[in-house]
């Protein structure tokens, strides 16, 4: 099969990239295999489980079904962008404090969807949190600890 490379320029966690990618290459593949950002996980590969969630222009998308070539001029954020200078971000710390992660495979996806939610609505109700997480599946925690982690930030008067 001939591969017709496509030039595409976009940023990931604030870093500009200009890449030549395959026309059907997914953002998940680009992040993990080309940019070696392996925090984003491959789950179902059909947009059902949300493990691969990243933000594109601040909106959560399933990177496993998102074509990289469609990213021209757009901004991508991944779980690697939530921490800085060796310190976890507040939402990540809340996940640890509240036991919101067990096997951890789904956690990066949850963190990204919740980051988008809290940027859009800094004090979501528990039902708004649950609704925002419709597209993220966790088979360990039962979700309660995840919702508690988000609520902890609201009780503390701001971001977790």
């Amino acid at each position, binding site marked *: 099969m001939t591969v*017709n490379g*496509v030039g595409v320029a976009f940023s990931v966690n604030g870093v500009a990239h200009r890449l030549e990618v395959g*026309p*059907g290459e*997914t953002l998940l593949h680009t992040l993990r295999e080309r940019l070696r950002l392996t925090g984003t996980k491959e789950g179902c*590969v*059909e*947009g*059902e489980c*949300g493990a691969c*969630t990243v933000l*594109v222009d601040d*909106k*959560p*998308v*399933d990177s496993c*079904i*998102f*074509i990289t*070539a*469609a990213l*021209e001029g757009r901004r991508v954020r991944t779980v690697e962008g939530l921490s800085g200078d060796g310190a976890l971000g507040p939402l990540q710390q809340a996940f640890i404090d509240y036991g919101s992660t067990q096997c951890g495979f789904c956690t990066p996806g949850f963190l990204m*969807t919740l980051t*988008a939610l809290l940027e859009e609505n800094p004090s979501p109700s528990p039902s708004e949190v649950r609704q*925002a*997480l*419709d*597209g*993220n*599946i966790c088979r360990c925690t039962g979700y309660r600890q995840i919702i508690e982690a988000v609520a902890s930030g609201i009780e503390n008067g701001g971001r977790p």
Partner: protein
Amino acid sequence: MQFRRAQTLDEALDVLGELGKDARILAGGTDVVIQYLHGEIAPETLVHIEGIGDLATVSLNHRTTLGPLVTHRALATDEALGTAHPALAASARTVGGWQTQAVGTIGGNICNASPAADTAPPLLVADAHVTLASRRGKRRLALTDFFIDRRQTVMDPDEMLTAIDLDPLPAGAGEAYLKLGRRGAMEVALVGMAVRIGFAADGTVDSARIALCSVAPTPRRVPEAEEALIGSRLNASVLDAAGEALRAAACPIDDARASASYRMRTLRGLLERAAIQCREAVTL
């Protein structure tokens, strides 16, 4: 495969005119990319149209006009749109999770022509029409005439959906979209039903539109069931008759999600629930 970016409608129509069925339009990709990864489609060229800003507009007037790139998220959260089209907003909220709604478009939901397309029944009860454009010109047709079969539409290979126009909810009418699934999220409809009912000042039904998805190869209106409701006060015998008309129009399949017989048996109950929601939405 090749990847082409179209920045304007003319550019997109040029590519489609040149490549026809070898091209596949890519917007949010929530259906197209899955089909590509599963090997169900193998287009020679993906034509990316998300950058055509003109196709993402909403205009609310005596008819509402939606660009095909309006996302499910916009349908689900835009307040003015939600007031004019509550059933459409409700249906958009049930399409996948936020990740799907954020990029998945109404144009894609229609053109993909899934039997289970959630936005189709609310569009059908709003008398939606679609505008198809190609280098040869434009045509506008009723959504009822757009779907031919499972995943098949009347669109020619060089055509593209450029607008959807529909009736906003009139005064004195209520509407609802009910989706039957095994769980509350990330579900493909076992049955989807949109109902829009208008009431006279004395509470009798003076207009009714009912549309279904997931019970036939295409989403469809059911005029016989609509007629059964007109002039009534939605009493049990009228709902029985309309439910019977719905069953006559449905030809569901057995699949992993539900049996055909189960789907058939839900229609009368869903109609009653939807009718109650319509009535409760109206102050006479």
